[in-house]
């Protein structure tokens, strides 16, 4: 019976073929390390956020007079409402942890190289969508930090030339963050995850066209690819288990660390909190915003700092595959960059006083210098490495050029 039903479907829709082609028999490089688990984890976190979010939306009230109370209603009266909310609030941070590790792995192995440019760019769009979603979601509890964070960030759009005030007004729907803002942020916070879901679909279609990169950086022969199921289904599930242990430790034992104390005070437009600071995942970019003394410059630098990842497929001109694995200079740049982002994150959490300001400016300079120097350093590094001699597994990729034939210069009769 079951096979007849399946047969009926298959004649009308390629269900069996799809499952076999894209899931069970999908060829995957067998040398993928655990760093390759994070794409799957990101998908899992997205689904968990959507599911908990839908249930939270059944009890949440997007109204300035009710929002804070409705969150407390969820925390106290709704059956397991506290669990839903803590999974959702911890999940926001977890999402960024997973996404940042996923990006870091791509950077380390330079997986953005040909033919995976579109994967990197769709990933870049995903990052922007996730950031927008997180930012709008943060307004919803309507605490002090929600309100003032939204106030500060929407204000930044005021630097748009000529129409700045109108843009801010259009975003907020009011002259300051208020009921109109809360309601539209709620509507968009509900919408964006589905845009993300669609974008993830595109990301995956691109992945299944170009296939996974792997730590060696070399496209593997067919014999080194193994079917996704059962090998990677099990590896991903085991990774998911480890992830869930850490995630649940936060959800059940320290859920408060991701909720600012100031956000347990209802929003009050008349009282500004002493320190307005964004969530940890925005702090490196926030530090860049503050490092530039001019507001317009700061906003542009911040926008650029997020978008600049898109240039990497062009900026990294090295033909040597495997990224940091085979390229010592690139590896050094990678670690400097990661350390620099961590410094920026720290600076973004501190008051912008003398030394912190200077540190932030130096770190901002290093951040952008990495991208601007990469085209030159990568080309120079490739020449240096090839002159020094490549490891045996790479030599086949670089056949020696035929020696240049020098023609004797014809003698010109005087």
């Amino acid at each position, binding site marked *: 019976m079951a096979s007849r039903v399946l047969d009926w479907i298959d004649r009308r829709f390629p269900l069996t073929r799809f499952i076999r082609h894209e899931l069970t028999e999908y060829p995957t490089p*067998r040398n993928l390390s655990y760093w390759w688990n994070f794409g799957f984890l990101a998908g899992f976190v997205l689904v968990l956020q959507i599911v908990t979010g839908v249930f939270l939306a059944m009890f949440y009230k997007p109204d300035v007079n009710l929002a804070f*109370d409705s969150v*407390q209603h969820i*925390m*106290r009266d709704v059956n397991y409402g*506290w*669990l839903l909310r*803590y999974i959702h609030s911890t999940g926001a941070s977890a999402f960024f942890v997973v996404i940042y590790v996923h990006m870091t792995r791509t950077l380390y192995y330079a997986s953005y190289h040909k033919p995976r440019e579109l994967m990197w760019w769709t990933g870049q769009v995903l990052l922007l969508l996730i950031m927008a979603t997180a930012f709008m979601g943060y307004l919803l509890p309507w605490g002090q930090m929600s309100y003032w964070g939204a106030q500060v960030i929407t204000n930044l759009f005021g630097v748009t030339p000529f129409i700045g005030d109108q843009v801010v007004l259009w975003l907020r729907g009011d002259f300051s963050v208020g009921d109109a803002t809360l309601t539209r942020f709620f509507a968009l916070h509900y919408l964006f995850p589905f845009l993300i879901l669609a974008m993830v679909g595109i990301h995956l279609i691109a992945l299944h066209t170009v296939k996974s990169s792997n730590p060696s950086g070399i496209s593997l022969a067919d014999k080194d690819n*193994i079917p996704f199921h*059962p*090998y990677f289904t*099990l*590896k991903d*599930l*085991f990774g998911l*288990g*480890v992830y*869930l*242990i850490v995630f*649940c*430790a936060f*959800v*059940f*034992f320290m*859920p*408060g660390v991701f*909720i600012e*104390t*100031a956000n*347990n*005070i209802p929003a009050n437009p008349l009282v500004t909190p002493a320190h307005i600071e964004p969530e940890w995942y925005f702090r490196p970019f926030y530090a860049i915003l503050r490092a530039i003394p001019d507001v317009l410059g700061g906003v542009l630098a911040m926008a650029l700092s997020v978008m600049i990842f898109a240039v990497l497929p062009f900026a990294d001109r090295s033909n040597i595959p495997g990224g940091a694995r085979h390229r010592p200079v690139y590896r050094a740049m990678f670690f400097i960059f990661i350390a620099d982002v961590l410094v920026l994150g720290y600076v973004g959490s501190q008051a912008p*006083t003398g*030394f912190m300001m200077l540190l932030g400016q130096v770190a901002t300079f290093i951040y952008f210098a990495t991208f601007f120097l990469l085209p030159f350093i990568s080309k120079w590094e490739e020449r240096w490495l090839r002159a020094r001699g490549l490891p045996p597994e790479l030599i086949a990729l670089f056949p020696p050029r035929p020696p240049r034939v020098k023609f004797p210069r014809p003698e010109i009769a005087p």
Partner: protein
Amino acid sequence: MKRWLVFALCQFACSAWGDTEPALNEVRVGVDLPTLERGAETVITVCAGCHSLKYVRFRDLVRLGIAQDKVDAWRGGKPMGAAITGQLPADAALASFGKIPPDLSLMARAREGEADYIYSYLLGFYITPEGTLGNHYYPPTKMPDILAVAGVTDPSQRAQLEQKARAVTSFLVWAADPHARERRALGYYVIGYLLIFTTLLYFLKRRTWAKLDRPASA
């Protein structure tokens, strides 16, 4: 050794930049019923004179385990589903203190330092050299020294006050997150289950992957 030296230097440098607020006294909040009940007693009979706890209802106190007749005595004629409200009308509070006393339901989560802050603040009152009342941890406070801490030097009396402050703090920590105990209890089961499940998955994964290295004919 070197690492510790660098760490110590960083610590020193950070402390040099840090603000000069006094360090908070750490408190181990109680989760046992007697402590919470003593805290509830003080909060409802003393604090709730001015402060509200608008997210805490009398019913929640019974659910916590406090005896029904005790809760009945506290609520007077109010229904079980009523929230704990302050006795002081807003305009009277404005007239005598210059501000409306903040709601206490989330106080244990709404200040930097959380429980330690409340505990330190309650015990932080002192008599200034000018003879007025001051507080080490929140100098601009308008609240009177409700536990009558200022000027008490006798160690046994002081210890009693510390016990009282600890009970109040413990109750407010409960009030800020009343499902915390249930959450932790569930957490042990969830993480225990995940540990077993993940260990099994690990061995299953290893066994499956081991097949890859066997020759195809075997």
